[in-house]
């Protein structure tokens, strides 16, 4: 039964080496194997064979950022839950009441963003003036 840290983590190092070898092999293999033919049509971004219009470095809906921010807020709550769950049987009711208070506070925030419409993706986005053109959600 391995107990020391080197014994516990050495297999992960071995697996990391295997994983890097497999991934590196796949990517290097695709670089060296197979014939190479380049031409202009093939070098365009593949968009169903249409002539690509504009660039892919476009502005996109702010909602993607919003979801990212909300995720960080709520995921920190989830991180607190794990140590709490591990020591739960030693603290019992005390831990329950403490976590209940914490979750009620988090849920208050959750219902606030829900009512504000931050979670509603179907709502028509308010149009933003960008120079002369008007943009809508991506």
């Amino acid at each position, binding site marked *: *039964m*391995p107990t020391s840290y080197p*014994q*516990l983590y*050495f*297999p*992960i190092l*071995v*697996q*990391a080496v*295997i*994983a*890097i070898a*497999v*991934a590196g092999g*796949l*990517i290097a*293999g*695709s*670089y060296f*194997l*197979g*014939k*190479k*033919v380049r031409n202009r049509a093939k*070098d*365009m*971004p*593949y*968009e169903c064979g249409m002539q*690509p219009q504009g660039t*892919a*470095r*476009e502005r*996109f809906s702010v909602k993607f950022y919003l*979801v990212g921010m*909300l*995720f960080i807020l709520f*995921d920190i709550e*989830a*991180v607190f*839950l*794990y140590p709490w*769950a*591990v*020591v*739960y*049987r030693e603290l*019992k*009711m005390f*831990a*329950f009441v403490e*976590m*209940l208070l914490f*979750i009620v506070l988090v*849920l208050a925030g*959750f219902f606030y963003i829900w009512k504000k419409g931050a*979670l509603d*993706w179907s709502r028509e986005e308010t149009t933003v003036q960008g120079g002369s053109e008007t943009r809508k959600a*991506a």
Partner: protein
Amino acid sequence: MDFIVLSLIKAGLIAFVLLTTLAYLQWVERKVLAHIQLRPGPRRVGPHGLLQPLADVIKLLTKEGYVPSHVNKPFYFLAPFLGVVLALLAISVIPFGPEIEIAGVKTQMGMTDLSVGLLFILGLTSVGVYGVALGGWASNNKYALLGGLRSSAQMISYELPMALALASPLLLANTLSFREIVGTQEGFYFGFLPRWAIFQMPFPQVVAFILYVITAFAETNRVPFDLPEAENELVAGFHTEYSSLKFAAFFMAEYANMITVTSIATLLFLGGWHPPFPRELGSDFIPPLLFAAGGAVMLFHGVTQPRGKWDNITLPVFGLIFLGIAALFAGCAVLPMLEPVRQILLPVFWFAGKTGILLFLFIWVRGTLPRFRYDQLMRFAWTFLFPVAVVNLLATSFFVAVFSN
């Protein structure tokens, strides 16, 4: 220095089994999907298409590894690399059997057992988002960008209910080590009902299990949550600009992630390698019966009504192999001198069986359900799964605080 040799042997063995499983999972998926849609599926390459994975690998090896000049090269190569490395690394903390003794050497089945095993996997899967998001952005293609954006928003949205759903069985187990979590699910109520987390008193984790399976579908970008690669809207989503082995790398990562999430579901909710009913009631006889039935059916069909060209040879051969496996399991169940073999084979059988049933569920759902619309997908995660997961967690903690000793 024993542990170095031992870990190298185990790592090699597990890598071989894993890579073979990944290749054949693809074959199983194509076969099952085909039969759901009343098609025969792959059947040209080898008997019943069994050599199809090999043919696919050769095909992908010889395809042109095209790197379009409009891509952002460092991130374009980093994305599939990250995906594969993280997916394969997660396997290293998953155990698939108890501690065993071979030729006097005691070892665990599984590479290692960290005291923070579950957090380790959650951390790796969180970083996995980068593979998809970077792949979509670096491709410099509008479809790929949309696929990458959708997928990153989707994966982080479903990670929240997943983290909450995984926290509630932890309240029963009170540890993050997979081996100890499985240890708390050993034994039976009333002599027949297993103490798996989905049945465990004081609060069975059925809701958490269903939530976890749903979020696992979303985390692995599988139907009905496959919007990142919705082929009829976005060509192929984030991997539109990837070809040959780089494309294969994304697929490998997806299938490895499927195996990881189903293994976690088995370990946390379905009792890991413990049988579904006690040995005294004959759980040892299930594997020989299953293999014998399969072998007998194949033998019978091969001899009496071969449909394909080689069926009269291949089906009896496979049938005999299955009957041999059945005989081995039956020997383990009856003969006391095979006890060491039994202690290796049966846990692996139950673990692989439960994981296999969940993997079949993944494929079955892909053949059955249509895709979500994007606003439905996000609304489902935030306004349904998240509140349900919170309520389930609070209910679990309340019952554990009040009723457990």
